[in-house]
């Protein structure tokens, strides 16, 4: 049959082809569709020529044009010999040689039915017939040689081919269908097929044409369970009866074979026995076949069902021992071969074989041994087909086999076999199971809503952002349902499971926890919203090779038979789903892993904990983490123990190294305190080098005048006290001796505490008090301001609002300071432990130009503080004018102060003596400056003061300044001569910020102007002058002529140490200050003189020891530096050698 016939659209459709094309099926051999289209049975594996053509495929309603039929029949004799197409068809061979087969009436083409009613139709060839037809044919006479049917045997309407068609003409004069002819169609009865839409009809045609695949051919029991038993449809989709004229047929037209066979329709004896066993009445087949006996009318399609007919045709077949066998025998052999064997079905269902697995049914006593799936009552889950079977009235004519033999006949056979086997010993559970009474659809649906079939609350679990996958997969309800579905008696409709599976999101991808989470995460968050890293991770995850297709396990297939197509082959691992262990490696990756194992000499069998993958780490799931911890716990414990052992070994080794190094350093620092032979190196100089940062710092404070305010910031804590307390002590002494008033602040509360401690020591130092001439009193001599809160911000506030910040002292009293800007301070000193504090002060506190800014820092802070030092430019650019670093500069600074006031400089140690040491004689006669270096064996305890005085190297004012009179830098100092200079130039000269032409000019002096000379450079090329308005600057010596001083100073003793201090710039004023200090030094009280001359008491020896340790500290530090350098060097060399040896071993 051609495609045109198959695809003919319904009448009235614009694509309706003409009738000629519609009936070209007999000519189109090559274009014929697969023969199974014409088969009434599902497509089998039999060759196309083995199929029967007596059952045309579904034809469009109304497609059978009577004219076309007549034309074909009229041309049949003529074309028989020419084309041979009709005769070559098996159908025609069989029709001419054998008796017509007994096809079901509703499966026959109506036009052939009509033909059969008039004559004996030709039977198909023997080979083409199905077995059941062959058996039926065996009772008939062999078919004669095919001959053309005689003309008289043709029906009247066939015999009158040459006659004119009675009735209205088909075609009108205009070439169109005549109205009269069409009017006849309106008088014809309507059929149900006319209600088909074009799409429905086309869908049916497509389904008929398409070659079903194996899955479709395989009977799906679950699908059958879900669908009700198909009802026989009136007609099979072929041409409507009105078009074929079946309504005009009467019973007398039935063929003889049909009339002869119908009286013999009886149930086989075995079948009757079965009915008796079931206590069912025997079906009244005779009554059902009465229409055939009476020869009144042909059976309607509902009545003439193939199975009924076949059952009646072959009552005596020995092979049909029961009803199920009868139905089975009705299947064509080829079709049966194409269908899966019952054993396969049992295997697919996970059920035992019917031959051996259901023996317990025949043993009533062993009912308890029946499998759980069989004995479990599942009345509520009974499928519809079971209900229908249970409620089937077997007294009525048995349901014939369906003309559309899908899986239903096989299922019916199977179930009939089961029922037949179980019938002798039906248990109460079975009766309850097999006879659920569902009156209507609602009751049936309500049965599915029974509590025992309610699905687990998996949706709720998955909506949780951190679902517990283990609990989800091990849900008891899920297991119950799975077990319930494993039983063949109660399969739940698959759609039921598909819905919740789709909601779970496991319809794609592996059913792993990671996949579920990934799927859920993808649903919750679009990919575009992920950041780049996650997108790359997603992309890499997509590029991963798919997991190995191991196929669903039998257990899984048994548990969840309805969802096998939705579950990926990844096996389900309870307790540890979705971890990296599920990731599959590609062959290339496996090869690389093998290579790495070979290179690393790692045994492949060594179990190693696999770290979690990026996906597992990305999606933090509590269940995954717990599962991961549970799995890795033993391995992690082992690794932790190994690491602890390694750490312990390393700690023991490091501990020994640490101990040895520490002991070496401690001995190096401590031994010089006791062993003079280890006092190597030189002591720090007693004066700063000219132009050095230290000298600039000293000079900055040395310019302070009585009454000036000096801001001192103590930015250090306990860790820096050992190094910076000495510096702060020296600076405060110098400022106080200059008559200035230090104002101490700090952004560190502990810095305020240390500054207060230093001031307290000064206040308790009688020597210093004697030099100062009065008791040191807070508020009058110095101000301790409360600490500046806020760190950097506090400094900013302090810089912008000095008045408020300085209003309150650390004691909570008013300071009385009326400062507005930092320029009100004559000098600013920052004593800092960290470079960050130095930078914060430089950056936040605006220092006025021309005001000395001095830094005193630790050795650790010095490298990063150096950039803020601007030598030669005292605060010109906001940087430091001078800097003091560490203990060395503190040592020298103290020596300088002792040179100025040798009898007033106390010890720098905190344990400063409360009494004037006996060695601090009132006659500071300078001694050899090289004493400490040349006689280290005579430590300082006996003569510290003489050492300091000798090392100071007081400059000769006459020689230094080139002037017989010293220059005082402090106008307030009495009896000190003032050196003036006269500008000797032809034009105005510049007074610059520094002793070089590169410095900016601060003023211009007219020729003949006089200025006060307060200093000079070491090479006497520049003089430092003070203008009338108080400003200071430098002027070239070539442009200034010094004048005689107003008073003649007392020549200072010449000292050999002067050359050591010749670099000091302004020691002229120091000399004056020294004399002034000497003059201002009160005469010692008689008791004090007595104390000084008295023999040292034990209490008096204490300061001697403390002072002596000043040098020992330096020697100890020197040796310690050497030891540290040696240790570091040896360690470095050892590391290099070790590396070389290790590299050679490799």
């Amino acid at each position, binding site marked *: 049959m051609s495609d045109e016939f198959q695809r003919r659209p319904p009448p009235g459709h614009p694509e309706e082809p003409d009738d000629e094309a519609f009936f070209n099926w007999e000519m189109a051999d090559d274009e014929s569709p697969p023969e199974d289209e014409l088969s009434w049975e599902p497509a089998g594996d039999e060759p196309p020529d083995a199929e029967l053509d007596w059952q045309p495929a579904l034809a469009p309603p109304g497609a059978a044009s009577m004219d076309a039929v007549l034309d074909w029949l009229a041309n049949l004799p003529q074309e028989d010999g020419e084309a041979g197409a009709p005769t070559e068809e098996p159908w025609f061979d069989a029709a001419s040689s054998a008796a017509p087969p007994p096809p079901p009436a509703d499966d026959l083409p109506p036009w052939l039915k009509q033909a059969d009613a008039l004559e004996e139709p030709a039977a198909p060839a023997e080979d083409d017939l199905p077995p059941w037809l062959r058996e039926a044919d065996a009772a008939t006479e062999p078919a004669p040689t095919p001959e053309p049917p005689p003309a008289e045997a043709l029906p009247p309407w066939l015999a009158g081919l040459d006659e004119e068609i009675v009735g209205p003409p088909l075609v009108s004069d205009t070439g169109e269908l005549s109205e009269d002819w069409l009017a006849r169609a309106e008088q014809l009865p309507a059929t149900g097929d006319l209600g088909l839409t074009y799409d429905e009809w086309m869908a049916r045609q497509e389904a008929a044409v398409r070659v079903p695949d194996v899955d479709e051919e395989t009977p799906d029991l679950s699908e059958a369970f879900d669908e009700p038993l198909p009802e026989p449809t009136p007609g099979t989709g072929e041409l409507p009866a009105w078009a074929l004229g079946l309504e005009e047929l009467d019973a007398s037209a039935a063929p003889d074979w049909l009339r002869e066979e119908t009286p013999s329709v009886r149930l086989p004896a075995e079948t009757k026995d079965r009915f008796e066993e079931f206590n069912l009445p025997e079906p009244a087949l005779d009554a059902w076949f009465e229409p055939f006996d009476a020869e009144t009318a042909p059976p309607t399609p509902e009545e003439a069902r193939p199975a009924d007919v076949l059952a009646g045709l072959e009552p005596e077949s020995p092979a049909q021992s029961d009803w199920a066998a009868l139905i089975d025998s009705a299947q064509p052999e080829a079709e049966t071969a194409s269908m899966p064997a019952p054993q396969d079905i049992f295997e697919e269902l996970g059920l035992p074989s019917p031959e051996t697995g259901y023996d317990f049914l025949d043993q009533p006593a062993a009912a308890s041994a029946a499998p759980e799936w069989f004995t479990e009552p599942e009345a509520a889950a009974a499928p519809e087909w079971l209900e229908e079977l249970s409620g089937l009235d077997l007294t009525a004519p048995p349901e014939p086999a369906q003309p559309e033999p899908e899986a239903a006949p096989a299922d019916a056979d199977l179930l009939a076999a089961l029922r037949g086997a179980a019938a002798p010993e039906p248990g109460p559970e079975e009766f309850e199971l097999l006879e659920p009474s569902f009156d209507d659809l609602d009751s049936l649906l309500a049965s599915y809503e029974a509590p025992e079939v309610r699905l687990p609350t998996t949706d709720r679990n998955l909506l949780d952002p951190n679902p517990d996958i283990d609990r989800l997969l091990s849900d008891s309800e899920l297991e119950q349902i799975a077990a319930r579905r494993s039983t063949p008696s109660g399969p739940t409709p698959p759609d039921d499971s598909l819905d919740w599976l789709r909601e779970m999101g496991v319809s794609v991808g592996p059913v792993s926890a990671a996949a579920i989470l990934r799927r859920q995460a993808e649903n919750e968050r679009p990919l575009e919203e992920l950041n780049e890293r996650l997108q790359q991770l997603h992309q890499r995850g997509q590029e991963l090779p798919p997991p190995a297709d191991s196929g669903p396990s039998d257990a899984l297939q048994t548990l969840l038979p309805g969802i096998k197509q939705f579950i990926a082959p990844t096996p389900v691992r309870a307790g540890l789903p979705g971890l990296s262990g599920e990731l599959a490696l590609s062959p290339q990756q496996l090869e690389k892993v093998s290579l790495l194992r070979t290179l690393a000499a790692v045994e492949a069998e060594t179990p190693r904990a696999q770290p979690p993958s990026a996906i597992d780490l990305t999606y933090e799931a509590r269940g995954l983490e717990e599962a991961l911890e549970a799995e890795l716990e033993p391995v992690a414990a082992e690794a932790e123990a190994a690491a602890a052992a390694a750490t312990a070994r390393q700690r023991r080794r490091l*501990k020994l190294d*640490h*101990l040895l190094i520490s*002991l070496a*350093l*401690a001995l190096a*620092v*401590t031994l010089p305190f006791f062993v003079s032979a280890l006092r190597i190196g030189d002591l720090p100089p007693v004066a700063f080098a000219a132009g050095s940062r230290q000298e600039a710092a000293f000079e900055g404070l040395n310019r302070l005048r009585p009454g000036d305010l000096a801001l001192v910031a103590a930015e250090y*804590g*306990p860790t820096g006290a*050992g*190094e910076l307390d000495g510096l702060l002590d020296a600076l405060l002494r110098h400022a106080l001796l200059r008559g200035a008033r230090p104002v101490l602040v700090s952004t560190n*509360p*502990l810095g305020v*505490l240390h500054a207060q401690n230093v001031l307290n020591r000064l206040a308790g130092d009688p020597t210093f008090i004697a030099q100062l001439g009065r008791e040191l009193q807070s508020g009058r001599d110095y101000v301790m301001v*409360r*600490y500046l*809160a806020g760190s*950097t*911000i506090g400094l*900013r506030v302090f810089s912008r609002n000095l008045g408020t910040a300085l209003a*309150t002292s*650390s004691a*909570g009293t008013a300071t009385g300071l009326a400062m507005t800007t930092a320029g009100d301070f004559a000098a600013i000193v920052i004593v800092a432990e960290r470079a960050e504090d130095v*930078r914060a002060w*430089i*950056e*936040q506190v605006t220092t006025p130009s021309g005001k000395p800014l001095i830094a005193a820092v*630790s*050795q*650790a*802070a*010095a*490298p*990063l503080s150096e*950039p*803020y030092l*601007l030598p*030669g430019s005292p605060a010109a*650019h*906001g940087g430091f004018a001078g800097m003091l670093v*560490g*203990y060395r500069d503190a040592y020298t600074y103290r020596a300088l102060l002792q040179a100025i006031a040798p009898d007033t400089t106390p010890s720098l*140690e*905190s*344990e400063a003596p409360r009494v004037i040491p006996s060695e601090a004689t009132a006659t500071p006669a300078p001694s050899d400056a090289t004493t400490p270096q040349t006689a280290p064996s005579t430590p300082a305890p006996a003569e510290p003061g003489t050492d300091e005085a000798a090392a100071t190297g007081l400059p000769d004012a006459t020689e230094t300044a080139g002037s017989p009179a010293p220059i005082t830098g402090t106008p307030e100092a009495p009896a000190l001569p003032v050196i003036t200079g006269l500008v000797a130039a032809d034009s105005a000269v510049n007074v610059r910020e520094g002793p*070089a032409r*590169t410095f900016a000019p601060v003023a211009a002096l007219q020729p003949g102007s006089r200025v006060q000379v307060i200093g000079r450079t070491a090479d006497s090329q520049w003089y430092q002058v003070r203008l009338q308005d108080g400003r200071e600057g430098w002027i070239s010596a070539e442009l200034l002529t010094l004048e005689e001083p107003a008073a003649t100073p007392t020549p200072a003793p010449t000292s050999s140490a002067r050359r050591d201090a010749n670099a000091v710039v302004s020691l002229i004023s120091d000399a004056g200050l020294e004399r002034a200090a000497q003059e201002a030094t009160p005469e010692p009280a008689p008791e004090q003189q007595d104390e000084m001359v008295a023999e040292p008491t*034990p209490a008096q020896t*204490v300061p001697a*020891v*403390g002072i002596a*340790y000043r040098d*020992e*500290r330096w020697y*100890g*530090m020197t040796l*310690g*530096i050497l030891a*540290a350098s040696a240790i570091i060097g040896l360690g470095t060399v050892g590391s290099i050698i070790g590396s070389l040896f290790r590299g050679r071993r490799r």
Partner: protein
Amino acid sequence: MNLANADTIGLWAGFVFTLMIFSYVLGDNILYRLAVYVFVGLAAGYIVVVTVEGVLLPWLQATMFTAEAGVGEQALGLAPFALTLLLLLKASPRLGNAGAIALAFIVGVGAAVALVGAITGTLLPLASATGGAVQLDVLNGFLLFLGVASTLVYFQYLARRDRAGAVRRSLVVRTVGALGQGVVIITLAALYAGAVLTSLTIFSERVAFILARMTGG
């Protein structure tokens, strides 16, 4: 207990705690930890007392407890305490966001102050000083300029990517950068040496202190 006795006790306590700290040379032990805990606890307690007495109470006295303080002054006086309370709410997970207001003030103002200070107090003066150093002394100025410039080059990360995707810097940049790296190494070595010197200074001071105590000082 008079002051002299208190000083004596304090000095001996310092001696004992110094030895406890030195016990770390034998490894971490209870004596070392006890001394550290005592120092940290004392420092914390002292800071709290100083802060309350030196900052908070004076602030309240200057704003709220003055006779002429109006509503505005009183509100201003309470503002820091309100921000403090908000900052304390950071300890609560539920109310922690309220503390962000105080943190915003601190971080925002601190960053602004640090930025302004860095520009005006570090960058510009150092750049000017670098140029001035070149004028003062050609050799030293050149070395200073070379060190600064090479260090800046070493810390620049702009480079071109070749066809293979590797980041490549030009030969000149790499050479100058290597010089800058050397400058950085020297600087870090100086820092390390300074730290060692500081440690030795403090250690020697402690040794002197202990010897003074042992000799009756």
